[in-house]
């Protein structure tokens, strides 16, 4: 093993981490907003909205993410209307195209997770809230969201990890995040195994950190699942 090469490669690859995190963070955040909208559309009871959201999810889950990225990055430029529109300065850049594709893609997967979470709230509780005279919004905020979130969190955590992994595809449209740099080094040195070990280690560390974070959040959000502390009920002595 050539440790000099490994060290240099690791340093080079680490310079791609900020871009990776940026892509993952913004696409997941924007995707979550879109996903909630889609989930609410499916649960609205309005057949038109339901069909729209359903077809959106069908299309984005049924096609490879790479096709979606190419469609946005290369495909949209085919139309003069788009090239002359105000959006062109954004859609011309690989960064915004990758972000858009990742956002639209994760929104489709997350909306199903969120819908499952909302559906998991027992109807009796909604009924009780209505009987107390809560408004729809108040029910959503106080009853549905806190409980649905808890149920959806493990699956959503998986989706976050999958998205971190999917940002690698942005390298195909020339973005130099970790995988992009890795493929460049491999093409220059032909030492695929060493580069793979370094890049793989970076992704594994990121995933480990994310899954620990989600587990902590899960623990915080479900106090009823925690074992009661030994001193429960006894006030802490003043210090």
């Amino acid at each position: 093993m050539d440790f000099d090469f490994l060290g240099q490669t690791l340093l080079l690859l680490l310079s791609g981490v900020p871009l990776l995190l940026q892509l993952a963070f913004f696409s997941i955040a924007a995707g979550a907003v879109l996903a909630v909208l889609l989930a609410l559309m499916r649960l609205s009871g309005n057949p038109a909205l339901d069909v729209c959201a359903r077809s959106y999810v069908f299309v984005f889950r049924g096609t490879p993410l790479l096709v979606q990225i190419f469609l946005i990055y290369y495909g949209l430029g085919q139309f003069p209307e788009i090239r002359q529109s105000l959006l062109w300065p954004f859609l011309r850049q690989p960064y915004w195209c990758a972000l858009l594709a990742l956002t639209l893609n994760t929104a489709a997967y997350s909306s199903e997770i969120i819908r499952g979470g909302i559906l998991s709230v027992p109807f009796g509780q909604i009924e009780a809230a209505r009987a107390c005279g809560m408004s729809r919004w108040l029910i959503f905020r106080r009853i549905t969201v806190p409980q649905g979130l808890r149920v959806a969190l493990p699956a959503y955590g998986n989706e976050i990890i999958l998205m971190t992994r999917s940002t690698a595809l942005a390298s195909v449209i020339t973005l130099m995040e970790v995988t992009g740099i890795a493929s460049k080094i491999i093409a220059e040195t032909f030492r695929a195994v060493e580069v793979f070990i370094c890049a793989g280690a970076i992704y594994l560390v990121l995933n480990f950190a994310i899954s620990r974070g989600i587990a902590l959040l899960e623990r915080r959000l479900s106090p009823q699942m925690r074992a009661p502390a030994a001193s429960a009920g006894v006030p802490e002595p003043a210090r």
Partner: protein
Amino acid sequence: MIDYVDLMGFGPKGWGPLMLQATLMTVAVSATAFALGSGVGALIAWARIEGHSLLQLAADAYTTVLRGIPDLLVIYLLYFGGSAALTALAHALGAKGFVGVDAFAAGAIAVGIISGAYQSEIFRGAYQAIARGELEAARAVGMSRWLMFRRIIVPQALRFAIPGLGNVWQLALKESALISVVGLTELLRQAQVGAGSTRQPFAFFITAAALYLVLSTLSGWGFRRAEAVGMRGVRRS
């Protein structure tokens, strides 16, 4: 619209035949990868159920690593790593120049070992869904391990595994698009080629997307049928 029909049609200037051929290539490479993944997945599942604790640890590491690392990296590793190894071997045997791995083989193996990581979890779950009493009964009537595996475990585990395998198949189908980066002329690569030579990228990529949708819809329907057939003797609440 007429332009589009001409472009994707089966006329003298149409790309229809090439796109369909590429779709078949996508199916072929995905199916090869999926079959490979079934073999790997079964081995890993066995290691996790029955294996020595070291083997279990190795199996755990395998699934964690392959589910956490981008598929693109695995494809690069197999393609470029494999090519470097082959070239070194060829040089040792006296040949000169660069020897590349076959893109189909490298891609199918890469997607296959990733698929294997997912399939192992499904097989393990399916094995655990078999009633313990049946295994005990099989042992009590004196079945050998192999006979028990063949007659009791496989038919039942497979039945429970069908829905999960359907999901993994869809994943393999979509992951096969990544093999285009090492130059295998499957659906996405063919669309790229067409987009490049006609300057109509949207038409080609939307066609590729539609063909992927057709593939995933058809196979989704197939797996639902298989599930209905597999579950026909099971009483459900």
